[in-house]
C-alpha cells in the first residue's frame, strides 16, 4: 500500500509517494492547472503511480495541501457572503481595528471589506459580556430581514453576534431561522467556529469561512469524483493551518481551518527532518519564484501564531507561524537616482517571470542574478523542466551593471548581497519578537530557490547551520502525508485563577476534551491513537498580554499546578515571578492529535539518475569575485563526506550553493547540512 502527498502551488503541483515502510519512493512535479486544479492533481498522481508501478487501488491515503483557499481570499473570489450582526454593530468589518497597513501613506488605499455594507444586516438581539441574554433574538424582525436578502447559488450566510463566545443561544436561534428560510445555503455561526472574544477577528474568521465554503466544497467534490473515476477510493485528507490534517468532508465545511494548509504542511515536513537531525530551534525558509516565507519551528513541532494575517486580514485561530520576507527569486532589481540597488518589492511573478525564463520578462530579477553568478545550471534547472537563457539574463542586467559601473557578474553579485541583506532585515526583527537567537538557530531551506540563497543568508545572519531536506521541491507534499490528525479547541474564561478553582478548571478542560475526542472519533481516530495537549493563555493581573502555557500531560491539573507552569515560564522569559499577584486565565485550549496509519522513515530511497546534470566544475561569483567551484550531484554525495565551498550541489529540485567558508555534509537521512568551516 502507498500513501500520496500532494501540494498544489501556483506554478507546480507536486506529488510524493510513500510506501508501507514509510519510505518516499517517488517525487513528481507537473505544471499546475489553476483553472481546474484537480487536473494537475490527477495527472501528477497517475504519472507518479505509473512510474512507481503501483495501481491506484494500492493507495490508502491521499493528503492534499493547497493554497486555493488563501488565493481565493486574497483575490476575493468566493461566495457572496451575507453577514448578520447585532444591531448597532453592522460596521464591524469596515472599522476593523482602525490601524491601516501603511501608516506613512499620504493617501492611504481604501480597504475592501470582505462583505460590502449592503450585504450586512443588523439583527435585534443582545448578549452581555458575562454571557446572559439581555435581549432574545427578535425572530419576527429576522424573518422580515431574511425576505430582503438577495440570494443566489453563490450565497453563504455568516452569523456573528456580540459576546456570542460567552453564550451561543441567539446565534443558534438565528441559524435555525436562516436554515428554515434557505435550506440549501451554507450557514456559519461564530460561536461554533471559534468562540473567542474580540468581535472583529471572530466575525472576520466566520465570514472568511462562509466565503470559502462554496468554493472549496465544490473543488473537493470535483476532486473526489475525479479520483474515484481513476480508481482512487481511499481517504482524502487536507492539511490544517496549525499543522496536522483533517478529513476532506470536514475541510469542506470548515475550510477556514485549512487556509494556510500549504505552508503548514511545508513546515511539518521541515520539522520532521530537523527533528531527525536532532535540531531544536529552527526557522524554515520556503522560497519559490514569487514568494519567500519563513516559519518558526520548535523542538516538538510547529510554533503556533494566533496573530497571523492573510494580506491585511487577521486569523484568530492558531496557525503555523509563517511570515513573508520579500518576493523571492522574481523580485525586480533597479538602481535608484542615488546609485543604490533596490530589490523589489515588486515581482516579475510566475508570468512573465525572470528574464532568463525566456517568457517575455525583460526586467532583471534575483533569479537572473543567480544565473549570472553561476549558481544555476541553465540546462538542469528544475530537473531540466525549464531551460534558462543566460543571454536574456545578461541583457536584463546590463543596465544595472552600467549604472553601477561594474562588470555584469560583479553587479549580479552585488544585487544578491542587497537581496540577502533585505531578507535578513525582515527576518531579524521576526526572530527578536519570538526571542529566537540567530546564533542558536538552524535554517531549514526548501522550495526551488530557498537552498540556493540560504547559505549566503546563513553567513549574513551568523546563523548556526542550515539544512536542506531531501526532496526540497516537494517538501510540502511530504509534510501533508506525514501529518497526524489535528483539532484545535478554545474556551474563553477571563477569570481570576484562584476564583475559578480546580474543579471548574477541570470541568472546562473536560468539556473541551470531549469535543476534541468527538472530532477525532469522527475522523476514525481511536483512543489508543490520540493525544490531547492542554494549553492556557495566562497573565498576571494588569499585564498587557497573555503568555501561552502548555501543560504537561503527566502533571495533575489543579489551579496551583497551572499557576506553577505559568510562573515557571514567566521566569524563563522575564526573569521574575510575582507570587502575590493575581493570575488571570484568559483562554483554555486543547490541541488534539491523532496518528494517521503507518510508519514514516526520515529518508528517501535512492533513486536512479534520470537527470541531465553533470558533475564537474564551474566558475562561481561571490562577493570577493570569481572563483572556481565544484559542481556535484546530490545523488552522488557520500554520507558524511564533507564538501567545502565554493561548490554547487545540483538535484532535480534545486541547486544548493555552498559559499566559500561553508562546508556541506550529507546526512544519512539524505539531508544536506551546511555549517561554517571551523578554523583550527
Amino acid at each position, binding site marked *: 500500500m502507498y500513501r500520496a502527498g500532494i501540494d498544489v502551488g501556483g506554478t507546480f503541483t507536486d506529488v510524493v509517494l510513500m510506501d508501507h515502510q514509510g519510505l518516499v519512493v517517488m517525487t513528481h512535479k507537473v505544471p499546475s492547472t489553476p483553472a481546474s486544479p484537480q487536473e494537475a492533481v490527477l495527472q501528477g498522481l497517475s504519472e507518479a503511480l505509473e512510474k512507481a508501478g503501483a495501481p491506484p487501488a494500492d493507495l490508502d491515503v491521499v493528503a492534499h495541501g493547497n493554497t486555493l483557499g488563501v488565493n481565493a481570499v486574497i483575490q476575493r473570489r468566493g461566495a457572496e457572503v451575507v453577514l448578520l450582526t447585532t444591531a448597532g454593530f453592522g*460596521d464591524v468589518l469596515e472599522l476593523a481595528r482602525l490601524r491601516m497597513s501603511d501608516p506613512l501613506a499620504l493617501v492611504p488605499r481604501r480597504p475592501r471589506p470582505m462583505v460590502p455594507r449592503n450585504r450586512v444586516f443588523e439583527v435585534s438581539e443582545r448578549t452581555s459580556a458575562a454571557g446572559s441574554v439581555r435581549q432574545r433574538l427578535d425572530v419576527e424582525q429576522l424573518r422580515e430581514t431574511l425576505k430582503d436578502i438577495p440570494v443566489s447559488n453563490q450565497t453563504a450566510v455568516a452569523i456573528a453576534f456580540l459576546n456570542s463566545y460567552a453564550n451561543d443561544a441567539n446565534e443558534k436561534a438565528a441559524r435555525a431561522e436562516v436554515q428554515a428560510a434557505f435550506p440549501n445555503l451554507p450557514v456559519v455561526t461564530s460561536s461554533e467556529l471559534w468562540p473567542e472574544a474580540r468581535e472583529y477577528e471572530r466575525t472576520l474568521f466566520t465570514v472568511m469561512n462562509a466565503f470559502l465554503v462554496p468554493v472549496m466544497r465544490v473543488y473537493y467534490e470535483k476532486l473526489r469524483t475525479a479520483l474515484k473515476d481513476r480508481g482512487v477510493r481511499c481517504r482524502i485528507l487536507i492539511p490544517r493551518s496549525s499543522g496536522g490534517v483533517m478529513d476532506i468532508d470536514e475541510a469542506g465545511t470548515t475550510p477556514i481551518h485549512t487556509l494556510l494548509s500549504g505552508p503548514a504542511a511545508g513546515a511539518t515536513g521541515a520539522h520532521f527532518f530537523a527533528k531527525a537531525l536532532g535540531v531544536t530551534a529552527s526557522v524554515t525558509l520556503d522560497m519559490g519564484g514569487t514568494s519567500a516565507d519563513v516559519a518558526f519551528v520548535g523542538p516538538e513541532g510547529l510554533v503556533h501564531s494566533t496573530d497571523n494575517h492573510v494580506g491585511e486580514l487577521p486569523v484568530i485561530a492558531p496557525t503555523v507561524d509563517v511570515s513573508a520576507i520579500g518576493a523571492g527569486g522574481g523580485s525586480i532589481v533597479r538602481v535608484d*537616482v542615488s546609485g543604490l540597488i533596490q530589490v523589489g518589492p515588486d515581482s516579475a511573478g510566475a508570468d512573465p517571470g525572470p528574464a532568463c525564463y525566456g517568457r517575455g520578462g525583460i526586467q532583471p530579477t534575483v533569479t537572473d542574478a543567480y544565473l549570472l553568478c553561476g549558481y544555476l545550471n541553465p540546462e538542469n534547472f528544475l530537473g531540466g523542466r525549464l531551460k534558462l537563457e543566460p543571454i536574456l539574463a545578461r541583457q536584463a542586467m546590463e543596465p544595472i551593471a552600467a549604472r553601477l559601473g561594474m562588470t555584469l557578474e560583479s553587479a549580479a553579485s*552585488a544585487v544578491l548581497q542587497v537581496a540577502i541583506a533585505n531578507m535578513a532585515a525582515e527576518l531579524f526583527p521576526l526572530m527578536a519578537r519570538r526571542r529566537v537567537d540567530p546564533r542558536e538557530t538552524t535554517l531549514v531551506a526548501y522550495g526551488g530557490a530557498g537552498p540556493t540563497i540560504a547559505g549566503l543568508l546563513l553567513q549574513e545572519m551568523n546563523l548556526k547551520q542550515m539544512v536542506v531536506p531531501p526532496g526540497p521541491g516537494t517538501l510540502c507534499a511530504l509534510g501533508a502525508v506525514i501529518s497526524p490528525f489535528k483539532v484545535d479547541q478554545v474556551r474563553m474564561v477571563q477569570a481570576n485563577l484562584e476564583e475559578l478553582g480546580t474543579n471548574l478548571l477541570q470541568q472546562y478542560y473536560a468539556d473541551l476534551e470531549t469535543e476534541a475526542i468527538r472530532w477525532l472519533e469522527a475522523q476514525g481516530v481511536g483512543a489508543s491513537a490520540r493525544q490531547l495537549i492542554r494549553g492556557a493563555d495566562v497573565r498576571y493581573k494588569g499585564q498587557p498580554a497573555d503568555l501561552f502555557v502548555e501543560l504537561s500531560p503527566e502533571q495533575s491539573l489543579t489551579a496551583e499546578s497551572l499557576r506553577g507552569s505559568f510562573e515557571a515560564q514567566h521566569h524563563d522569559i522575564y526573569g521574575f515571578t510575582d507570587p502575590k499577584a493575581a493570575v488571570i486565565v484568559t483562554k483554555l485550549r486543547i490541541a488534539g492529535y491523532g496518528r494517521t496509519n503507518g510508519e514514516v522513515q526520515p529518508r528517501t530511497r535512492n533513486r536512479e539518475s534520470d537527470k541531465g546534470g553533470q558533475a564537474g566544475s564551474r566558475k562561481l561569483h561571490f562577493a570577493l569575485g570569481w572563483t572556481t567551484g565544484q559542481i556535484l550531484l546530490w545523488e552522488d554525495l557520500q554520507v558524511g563526506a564533507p564538501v567545502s565551498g565554493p561548490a554547487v550541489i545540483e538535484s532535480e529540485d534545486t541547486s544548493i550553493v555552498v559559499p566559500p567558508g561553508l562546508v556541506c555534509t550529507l546526512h544519512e537521512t539524505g539531508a544536506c547540512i551546511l555549517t561554517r568551516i571551523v578554523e583550527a
Partner: protein
Amino acid sequence: MRSDPVTLGVLSARFQAIADEMATVVQRTASTIFVVETADFTTMLLDTRGRVFACPMKIGITVFVGLDCRKLLELCAPAEEGDVFVTNDWHGTKGASTHLSDIVVIRPFFWKDRLIGYGYAFSHATDVGGKLPGSISPTSSDTFQEGIRIPVTKLFARDEVRDDVLQMILANCRAPHDNWGDIKGLVAAMRMGENRIRELCDRYGAEMVGIATEDVIEVAGEKARAAVRRIPDGEYRFADYLDSDVVSDHPVRLALNLTVTGDELMLDWSHSATQVQGAFNVPTGGTNHPWITYRALTLLRHLDPTIPFNSGLLTPIQAKAPEGSVLNPHFPAATGVRFPTALRANDVMLGALAQALPSQLPAAGGGAMVPVVFSEPDPASGRPRVLTLQVLLGGTGGNPKDDGIDGRNCELAMLRNTPVEVTERNASVEVLAYRLRQDSGGAGFHRGGTGIEYTVRVLRPGCVITARGLERYNFQPWGLEGGLPGIQGRTILNRGTPQEREIGRFDALAPAPHDVVTFLTAGGGGWGNPLERPGEKVLADFQSGVVSVQAAQSEYGVVIKGDEIDWVATEALRARMAPEARAGTYSFGQWRSKHERTWSEALQDQLVSHLFATPVALRSYVSKVLVNWVIAESAQGAPIGAAQLTKRWEEMREKGWVEDV
C-alpha cells in the same frame, strides 16, 4: 556619498532591521497596554550629531523621524559605556520629548571605547503624577500641573540602575510599577541595539559604519531635495483652527506661509496664535520639529516612496515658529494635549501644499482623535478604576483618485481600537452602537470618509467620562476643489428621548445609571464637485446606508425613488443646483465663514503681531481684552479693521496695559 553603493545598500537594510528589532523588544517586554497594544512608543538610532538615521516604519509612532536631538545629546554628557539617560523635559531638550507623559531614554553606543552613536526610545507613561490620574488635562495651565519633570538625568551608570534616581522618579508617579516596567523595556531595546551596531562594527569596521550612517541621511536628503523640486515654486498660505483651547471660547488659529524655492521648502508658522492657557501648546524649539513638519515629510515620501526614512528627509525643509507661539511656547506652558494642535498643524500643511500641487492631494480628514476615558469606583475598595473605552477617529478626506476611508484614519498615529467585547468585559457599560455615521463625510466627486457613531449606556452610579481632543465640533474638515466640508462632531446625552441634550465639547461628565452618551465624530472633507459624482455611486452609497435619501438629493442632486434613481428629476435638479456649486479650492463651511466675517485674515495677523509685542506675562490678559472688544464692537455693526485694533492695543500699552475700572 563616500560608501560604495553595495555596502551602503547592505548597511542601510541592517540599520532599518536594528530599529525594527529594538521596537519588537519594547513590545514584547514592556508592561502597559499603552505600549504593547496601542504602541505609543518608538525606538530610533541617532548619529553622534543627534540625527536620526533609522526609525521603525511599521511599529509604533513614526512621526519622530524628523527629531533633532542635538540639544538632547549635549545634555547626555559626559557619556560613558553602559550609561542610560532619562528625560521627559520638553523645555530643556528643545522638544526631544513633547509632553511630560513621554519618557525618553538615551543610551550612548560604544565600540572599543569609541562613541559611535546613540539609541533613542520613548514610551507614553500611564501616569507621571500631576493634578489628576493619567496626568493629562486640557485645563492644565502650566507644566507643573502635568507631572514630575525629569531633566536629562543618568538613570544607569555602567549598566547598573541608580536606585536613588529611580526611586525619586517613581515616588512621583501614580503607576510606578507600570512606568518602571516600560522603562525596562526601553532599556533592554537600547542594549540590544548597541550590541547589533557593535556586530556591524566588528564586521565592517566602525569607520565604514559611521560613514554609512552619514550616507543614508545624505541619500535621503538628496532624494528629498529632488522631490521638493517637483513642487512648483511659490508662496502658499493657509490657516485652520482648533475650536478653542477649552479655557476660553476663542478659536486657536494655526497659520502657515509655505514657500518653495527650487529645492528648498520653508514653513513659516509666525502668524499662528500665541501660546494658549490650556494644555494645547506644542513644544518644538521653534525650528524643524516633527509636529510642524510631518505632513511635508510624508508628502516628500508620497512623491518618492524610495526616500530612506530618516532625518535626511528634513534636509530641504526649514520650519520656524517664534518663541511664545502656540507652536513654540515659553516655559512653563502646559503641553499635555499637544496632539490635537499637531493634528491641525498637519491639516494646515496639507492645505498649503494643496495649492502647490492642485489635483494631487486629499481634502482634510476628520481631524480629531478622542480617547474616551471612563472611571468607575472599584466595587470592593471604592477607589476609581480608569480605562479607555475607545479611541474615536473620523474618516480621511476624499482625494483625486478615490473616496475617503470611512471611520478610520492614520494621519499622525496608528492606533488600534478596543474590541467592544473587551470594553464590556472591563467596564460597567453597555455599548449600543459602534458604526459609521451616516451623511457625515463631505459630499464630493470623491466623498469624504464618514465619521463614526459611538454610543454607550452607563450601568452604574459614580462613573465619570472624560474625552480630551473633542475637536472639529465647530470648524469643519474642509473640502477641496469643489468638495464640501465634512460634518462636525457632536456629543448627545440620551439621544431620542425627552431628556435629549447636546453636551458638545464637555469637560467631565458624571452620568446617572442608564444614561446614554452618543459621540459623533466629524467626517473627512469631500474632493471635487458632488454634482458631478456619478449617480450610480450616490445610489450605491444610499444602498449601503452611508448617504441618506435626503442628502443624496440636497448634497448631490440625485433623486432616489425607492431603490432607483429618478434620472429625469436628477438631471433637472442638478441643472438647478449647478450655479451654486462651489468654485475655488477650499470649502470651509459656515462656522468658519461666520468667524472670519468678524475676524479677517488681516485682523488676525494684526492681533498676533500685537500680542508678540506685548510683555509675555500680560499676553493672555491682553488677548482676552482685545478679543472680547472685537466681538462686542463687531456685534454692534461694522467689522473691526486691523487699524482699529492697533489703536485699541496702543491705548492699552499707553495705559500700562491695565484697564480702568
